[in-house]
């Protein structure tokens, strides 16, 4: 029996941890790539309404239109709700052209499935929203998603 014990005591080979940093880095890169940064800075207040019958939105075929009151650092725009598309404030009449331009940027197979996401502040009056919808009808982009926070039923 003592034969087996000899020489085997106390020298377990250390597990090499040299590759651990690599693994950690790999994960880090994954998260860096997967996290989406907010791509346009908002110039307006944007507190979304909440709803419980929500569906998921497919990002690859969506353009967002924001609307709401100008936020504190953009007081020069007035206090009435305005429309923001990408990085600039646009007028109601410009919605049609902007949306069509956004649709053109998509790949051909996604263009018929184009959805407009409306991110509208909950204190905005609904008249502005119906103006936007009227413009969207003229642009013939008829699929609309009212973005809302999911609320438990």
């Amino acid at each position, binding site marked *: 029996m003592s034969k087996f014990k000899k020489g085997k005591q106390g020298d377990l080979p250390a597990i090499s941890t040299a590759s*651990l940093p690599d693994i950690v880095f790999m994960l*880090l890169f994954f998260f860096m790539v997967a996290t989406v940064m907010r791509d346009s800075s908002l110039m307006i207040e944007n507190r979304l309404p909440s709803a419980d019958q929500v569906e998921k*939105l497919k*990002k690859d075929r969506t353009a967002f239109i924001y609307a709401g009151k100008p936020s504190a650092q953009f007081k020069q725009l007035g206090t009435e709700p305005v429309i923001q598309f990408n990085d600039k404030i646009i007028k109601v009449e410009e919605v049609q052209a902007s949306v069509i331009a956004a649709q053109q940027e998509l790949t051909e197979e996604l263009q018929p499935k184009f*959805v407009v996401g409306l991110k509208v502040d909950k204190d*905005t009056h609904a008249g502005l*929203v119906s103006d936007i919808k009227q413009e969207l009808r003229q642009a013939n982009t008829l699929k609309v998603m009212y*973005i809302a926070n999911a609320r438990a039923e």
Partner: protein
Amino acid sequence: MAKRAAPEVNAGSMADIAFLLLIFFLVTTTIEKDKGLLRSLPPIDDSEVEPPIIKQKNLFTVLINRNNQLLVEEEQMELKDLRQAAIEFLDNGGGTNAAGESCDYCKGKRDESSSDHPDKAIISMKHDRETSYEKYIDVQNELVAAYNFLREREAKRLYGNLKQYRGTEKVYQAMLEEKEKNQFSKDTILNGRIETIKKLFPMKLSEAEPDKS
């Protein structure tokens, strides 16, 4: 005193610390996914065709005034009662549809003065320009919820006994999720089932433009 060599710091636990941080961020970050109510707008219709006359009893009117009050079928109503009222209207089945079939799956009161058939039942919504968007979304949500409730009920009745849905509370939702998951491989049976349910309670939600004031 003799100068002693500084002992080497063991860096073996560095990876552990890094992992700990990584796991913490992994758990706390939510990759944000936007959600919302998907609706289709009606296309602009320039033709001068006379719109078909819709019987008053097949029309469920919802008005929201500038003070965010609801007027449903000429009566003031609280938001919490709207869903039930809409369900009762859609599910009434008091008459026949265009093809002359009566609604055999409706469980409503079969009231003569309410809607004939889910095919014919139309919810019409109108709001003021000054209505708040929050209220508008709340009302939209309740109306969509009424349709979803009825579709869910029909899905459970028709397909609830299939083995993949047995025990699931929300059969229709499960079907939609399944469709979403397999969006690249078309499942004609599943799509057919979803279409069947949608056809039982077609979403006919019309919105009138607010008056210009």
